[in-house]
């Protein structure tokens, strides 16, 4: 595997990870909206925020390091 192939594979992995983060945070937000009971709603919304924003930071860093 040459460098270009490695970077393409790494970029695909990062894309897949990003998609999973998005699915997970969307699920938590959906749960938060559906369960109109405190503190469950707030906990689910906070978890969704953290999943999305920490995940986005990790994905950004990985793309930065690999320049993909």
């Amino acid at each position: 595997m040459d460098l270009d192939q490695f970077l393409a594979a790494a970029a695909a992995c990062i894309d897949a990870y990003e998609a999973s983060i998005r699915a997970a945070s969307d699920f938590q937000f959906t749960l938060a909206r559906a369960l109109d009971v405190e503190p469950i709603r707030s906990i689910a919304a906070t978890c969704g925020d953290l999943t999305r924003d920490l995940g986005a930071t990790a994905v950004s860093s990985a793309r930065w390091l690999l320049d993909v």
Partner: protein
Amino acid sequence: MTATAGLAPAPDGRTRLHWETTGSGAPVLLIHGLGLSGGAWWRTVPVLARRLRVITFDNRGTGRSQAASLAYTTEAMADDAAAVLDAAGLERVHVYGISLGGMIAQQLALRHPDRVRSLVLGATQPGGPRARPPDAEVLEFLGSRLHMQPRDAARASIPFNYGTRCRDEDPERIEEDIAQRLAHPFSEAAYAAQLYAGAVHNCYGRLDRIAVPTLVVHGALDRMIPVANAHLIAGRIPGARLRILEDSGHLYPTEAPEVDVEIAAFLQALS
């Protein structure tokens, strides 16, 4: 009846985004930059609203919008923008973002491609290792601004936001901007959170996936976000047009208001 203003719930159900709309025609969503509310588009809205329906909103943590999270990302702020479109009942719009708003616009086009009809990316950067950072003096100012009073911060930002021609020949226009900015103060926490969003923004590697007509606008004398970033973005988005404003700095709508007419023409031609 179509609503003309409202509070849009963000995906987390707790963040609320104040939005407004004016004019009629093809819709264009405006996204403003660091610490500024939708009201900061006051020069641009009347020009675009002659032929277009213009939607502005306050980014989370600014103006009349409320944020529930401590840290922001451009991903979260792009999802906010999509939530504003939902609240306004709009499926697909032109999107014009400036500075941090341009970064949010990039994310919106990548995360919600079906919602974006065209892009105008003003005075912004793509993120990633190839993006050109501002000089050390600007970085020092951005850090120290956290602890300044709003009036002092607005004054101290002048050399970084405006080119020399505007500072010498049109100081009254800068005073108008400052008056507008002071009318909509924002919290230190929101400023820090938005600064973080800009710092970790990274779309460079994926800009070639943007498939809508794109216009990149940048002031050649921009110190906040060096003009090299406009060349990077325009070189990466297929078919993107690049418009460099030779005498302008970061806040080019104040320095070169005629560009709003060009942007309106670009959007209208696609409508």
